[in-house]
Structures are given as C-alpha cells and as structure tokens.
C-alpha cells in the first residue's frame, strides 16, 4: 500500500517537496532544502548556548537533586521542605544576596541524577549541589561535583563520601554509616541485648548499616546470630520471618527504606516475632511511616538524630516555623533538610553574600558553625563529616499519634566514634 500523500499547494512547499526535472536545479534544490533544515536546527540549537557567568547581583543558585517521584518521593519532599524553610525564614536572602533553589528529579537512578546534575551545573550555573537520598546516587554525583569544583552536600550514609572518596568539595551534613549504628549497638548492649539478627535491604546502605551494628556488637562481646539481605523492593518478608522462629536471638536490627520498612514492620508484627525490633534512623521516622504503622509501632527502638518531642528552644522554634509555613509538624527528615539549608545559609553569611568560586564556598561550608534544633552546635570534622548526637528513641502509638520518646542521648558523636570501655 503506497504511503504517498497529496501534493502540497504552496510555492515554498513545492520547492521543498516536489521534484523538478532539470538535474542541475535538482542538485541545487537538494542543497537548499538541506540548508534550510540545518539552519532551522541550528537556530534551535543556538538557544542551547549556555548563558554567561553570573554577575554579583544575580541570585546565588543552589541545585537540589532528589527522587521527587517514585517511592521515595514522600521522604524527598520532606527533606526539600526543610531545606526551603531554612532559606524562606530569611526571605530567601542572605547578607543582602538573593538565593534561589533549583530542584531536579533523579528518579533514584544514578544515570538520571548525573544528567540532571550536569544540567544544573552547566546550564543553570548553580554554585552548590545538594541531595540524593540514595547512597548509590550520591557516590555517582560525588566525582562529578568534585571534577566541576562545585561543593556537594548530602545526607546519605555511605562511608566513602567522607572516607575513601573524601574531598574538600564533599560534605555530609548528617550521620555517616556507623555514627548512629555504633552508639545504638552500645546502648542496646548496655540494656541487656546480647545476640542480634541483622536484616537489611540488599544495597550499599543496608550492608553498611547492619555491618556496623554487627561489628560493634561483637566487639562488646555480643553475637550475630544471622544476617539476611532481602532484595530492595521485596514484597513478602514472610519466608524470612518464618525461619526466625527457632533462632536464638533477643534482638533484630533492621535497615530498610520507604515502602520496604512498612511491609517489614507490618509483617514482623503479624508473624508474632518475639525478638525486640530495633531500626536505624530515618526508617520509622521518615515521611509518615510511623503514623501509617499505627499500633504496630509500639515498642520499636530506633536511633535518631533528633525527635520532635525534644523541648529545647530551637526545636520549638523550628516546629513553629515549619507549622506556619506548611501547616504540618516536621519529622526527622524535614529537620535534616533544615539543618542542611541552615548550613548553606551560614556559609553564605561567612562569605558576606559573595561567592567567588567553588573552593571559597567549600571553605566557608567547612568553617560553618550554628546551633541546630536539638540544642547542639553544628560542626564538621576534618573530613567534612558532621558531628551529631545519637538518641535512643522508643516509639509509642498514643491517642492516635505515633511519637518517639527519647530514652538516652550521646552527644559529640563523630564518624570514628568508639564505644567507651
């Protein structure tokens, strides 16, 4: 069946699409048409020419790359709101200079994150990159940020970011793998738990986190009974729980993320598993997971950087500010975002609103100190890793609300924190 359409009518389209008989003219017309197409394409491409360098009165642009769609979207939105609050509290201005946040969606995929980072840095000319919730993505963005001499701040836990892959341009404003796990293991061991089953999602953070807890436990004389790593996104933990019935352990430590956490805890409860459940930070306390779990959350122990139930003045001020801006009370992830944002605000303040280049910005970030919700003073160690406080929290579901009660706090925890003898 022939695919031909009818002959176009206008003169221009005659030239463009019909076929004259004279060979010389034919050739010229082919060339002409090609040239027209190419020039049109070039015109479009010219809009792709990058803008010139920013002048001192232009706003400072901050790029935030997060999984804004997909199963981590809730947590990502929480983090973003915290970041945005830190800037909007000051009217999005620091030291007289306007600050603009540009967001991008990485879909939790390293390749997409990289392309977005390139767009932010090379097209939008951001002076700083923040983000990702996923350690794999962070580890892909890190070399790019370093190569492009743009400071990169993340909250992900992968140890390499301030360890084997550290750089003056790389910062972690939250806890590294181990910073929560080792104190948690020590506190749990002190409370009488001696043998642990480790269950973690099968990716770098799951292995890092459970590995650290296990190592600290054994160093204190405890024992690891079993290690299980279900694949990310696994739907049915039933088979795993069924094998735990006869395992001689008094504690399960779980590291899961997002939807996996919900299913894990729900199935843990419905199988009547008797071992105490402890989970890491940002698993229960992220994006409404605790609330969704309802009564299932009772009695779970977690390690947290912060809890909304704290009563220090900065926490109260932060909660008020968040409530006013978003009509909602903040959770741990939002607070992490807020701290990240306040860090950048402080750094820009140190530079008095003038960010000449990435190195100066990085230096200012490194030197930033400010008080964070929870009452401590924020600071980086020499590897650009944040010093945090680890709090042991017990969760309860009371009057229709899930709350975490802080049982104990260990302050001044650095990446190389060791349990006291």
């Amino acid at each position, binding site marked *: 069946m022939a695919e031909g359409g009818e002959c176009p009518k206008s003169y221009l389209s005659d030239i463009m699409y019909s076929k004259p008989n004279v060979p010389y003219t034919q050739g010229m017309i082919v060339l002409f048409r090609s040239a027209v197409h190419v020039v049109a394409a070039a015109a479009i491409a010219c809009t792709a020419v990058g803008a010139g360098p920013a002048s001192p009165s232009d706003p400072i642009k901050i790029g935030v790359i997060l999984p804004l769609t997909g199963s981590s979207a809730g947590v990502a939105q929480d983090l973003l709101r915290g970041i945005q609050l830190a800037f909007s509290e000051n009217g999005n201005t620091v030291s007289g200079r306007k600050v603009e946040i540009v967001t991008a969606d990485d879909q939790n995929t390293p390749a997409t994150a990289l392309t977005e980072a390139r767009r932010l840095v090379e097209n939008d000319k951001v002076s700083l990159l923040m983000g990702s919730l996923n350690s794999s993505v962070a580890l892909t963005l890190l070399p790019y940020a370093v190569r492009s001499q743009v400071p990169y701040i993340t909250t992900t836990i992968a140890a390499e970011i301030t360890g084997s892959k550290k750089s003056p341009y790389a910062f972690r404003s939250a806890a590294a793998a181990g910073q929560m796990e080792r104190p948690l293991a020590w506190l749990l061991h002190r409370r009488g738990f001696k043998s642990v089953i480790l269950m973690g999602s099968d990716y770098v953070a799951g292995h890092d986190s459970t590995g650290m807890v296990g190592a600290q436990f054994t160093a204190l004389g405890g024992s690891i009974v079993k290690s299980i790593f279900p694949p*990310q996104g696994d739907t049915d933990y039933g088979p795993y729980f069924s094998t735990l019935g006869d395992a001689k352990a008094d504690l399960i430590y779980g590291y899961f993320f997002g939807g996996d956490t919900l299913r894990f805890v729900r199935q843990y409860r419905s199988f009547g598993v008797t071992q105490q459940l402890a989970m890491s930070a940002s698993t229960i306390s992220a994006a409404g997971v605790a609330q969704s779990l309802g009564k299932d959350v009772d009695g779970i122990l977690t390690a947290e950087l912060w809890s909304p139930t704290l009563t220090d003045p900065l926490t109260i001020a932060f909660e008020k500010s968040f409530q006013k801006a978003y009509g909602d009370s903040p959770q741990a992830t939002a607070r992490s975002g807020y701290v990240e944002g306040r860090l950048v605000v402080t750094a820009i303040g140190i530079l008095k609103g003038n960010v000449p280049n990435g190195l100066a910005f990085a230096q200012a970030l490194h030197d930033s100190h400010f008080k964070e919700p929870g009452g401590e003073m924020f600071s980086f160690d020499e590897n650009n890793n944040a010093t945090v406080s680890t709090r042991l929290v017990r969760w309860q579901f009371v009057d229709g609300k899930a709350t975490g009660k802080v049982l104990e706090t260990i302050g001044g925890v650095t990446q190389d924190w060791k349990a006291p003898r």
Partner: protein
Amino acid sequence: MNRRAPLIVCMFLALMLVGAWSGLLASFYVGLLTQALLTALFVMSLDLLVGYTGLDSLGHAAFFGFGGYTAALLSTHGVTNVFPLLLASAAGSGILGMLFGAVALRASGAYFLIISMALGYLPWALAIRWRSVTGGSDGLPGLMRPDLGFGIALNSDAAYFTFVTVFVIVCGIALAAIGRSSFGQALRGIKDSPSRMAALGYNVWLHKYVCFIIAAVFAGMAGMLTGFYTGLVSPDDLSVSQSAFGLMAVILGGAGTLLGPAIGAATIIVIHFTVGSMTPYWNSMLGCIYILVVLFAPRGIFRRFVLARKVKTV
C-alpha cells in the same frame, strides 16, 4: 526511505560538532547529544529485530547493559584502549545473544515478546545479586573514559562526542547496508510471511538467529559507550524499562526505517532532559506520547509525517 533525511541528520551533527569544539554549544547539550546518539544506536539495533524481522523483543536492554558491564569489568583490569573494549562488549553481548536467541526463538508472536522480557530479566537479576563482581544494585561507578590509542584521550566532552558521532554514523551505515542487502530483504520477507519464505527454501530460523545476534552486538557496543560516558554501569541499564523505551522509540519512529526510531529515541531523550525536567510528571507525558502515537501514528511518526510527503508515483 527518504533519501534526504540521512543527509540532513549528518549536516546537523556536523554543525553540532563545530558547536561543541568551539565552545558555542553548552557542554550540557554536548553530553545530552552524546547520550541521545547512543540511545539512537541502541534503538536502531532493535529496529533490525522489530522492523525488519518482525521479532518484537522486550528484552533488548539486556544486551545493552551486558556490553556495558563486560567492558567496565575489563577496564577495571587495566584495558584502557577503546577498541579492545568495544570488541569485548560486542563479543560479550554477541555471545549472550547466541544463548538467548536459541531459547527465545522457540516462541513467536506475543509469546516471543513475553519470553524475551523474561530472558531480559535474567542479566538484571544477576547484576543485582552478584555484588562482588557487578557491584549489586549500586553498579560499577567511577569508570574512566578510554583513550583512542596513540595518546589521544577521549576525556573531554567534545572529544567523546566526536568519537560517538563518528561511531554511530558508521554503525548506522552498516545497519542500513545490512538492511538493504539480500539478507535484509530476506528478513523483511520473513516478517511478512515466514511460511512463504520457508516454502521458498530459506532457512527462516537461521535468518532470525543471525539477526538476533547482530542486533545484540550493536546494542552491546551502544551500552559500552554509554557506560563510559556516564562513568557508571548499573542494573538500570539492563532493566525492562530500558527495553520498553527502546520498543516505544521504534514504534514511535516507524519500525523498519532505521532512521525513524533513531530520531524518535534522540528526540525523547532531549525532551526528557529539557522540557521534562521542568515537571515532576514526565512519566505521564511519556505515557501520553505512547498512547497518542499508538492511536494516531501506529506505523510511526517518521512514516506518517516524513515518508508520506513523497509524491505518489503511478
């Protein structure tokens, strides 16, 4: 196939090359075009399967990713020249193609679609499980770009872009040549009516098998170059979504035209990272594109809007 279209595309690419080297074209777009070209190569290889031979495969990304992983592993063992790496990825995905083809070609029609998808899942599951070798779901990051030999490095975006452009054009010509050859004509015949071709004495299964392997080889090389562009190979390169995207691009562009799917794929990539970045709902935009194309341009946009312009001959 519209004879002017390839010429226009080449002139456009030449212009882009000038832009890249002179610095007029923003480096983000140079990178984007590189990605678009490699995706176009991937999709062209799929077109050979789908458009020429009528084998609708939903597992083609397996070869794309496998080529990437093979080369990545080799490069971590010290191989830095781009040619042996290309050869390795071609060989790796070719062998995988031989294995998978033998199994998948036992089925046909919709069953082929499903079994190709299931087969495509296997390398993905392997990549995720075999952490010690493949890095698990984190993949293998930190890949250094290979060099051309004779001390010519491909580290700069412009240099890599140039290499990729030349390579993809060469591969495109090769694929077109295969399509126009008697082998390619036989494939078209098989798409039309396998029984007729069998009756005419052609070894239908062998033709399909060889086509499958060729498609795998080109996909593997595209995967390898993509991996070294981003500096990372990960299970996402092997995923069914990647395969599905390829299939969409083939339909979108017009199966069997080679250039149509290539342009279709490149266009979607460019739209994704320019317009699509402005909204968190890129997926539904893409979904709408698929629905609209299936309903209104089922034989592909290229056929509908470009080839249709050809004057009817009596």
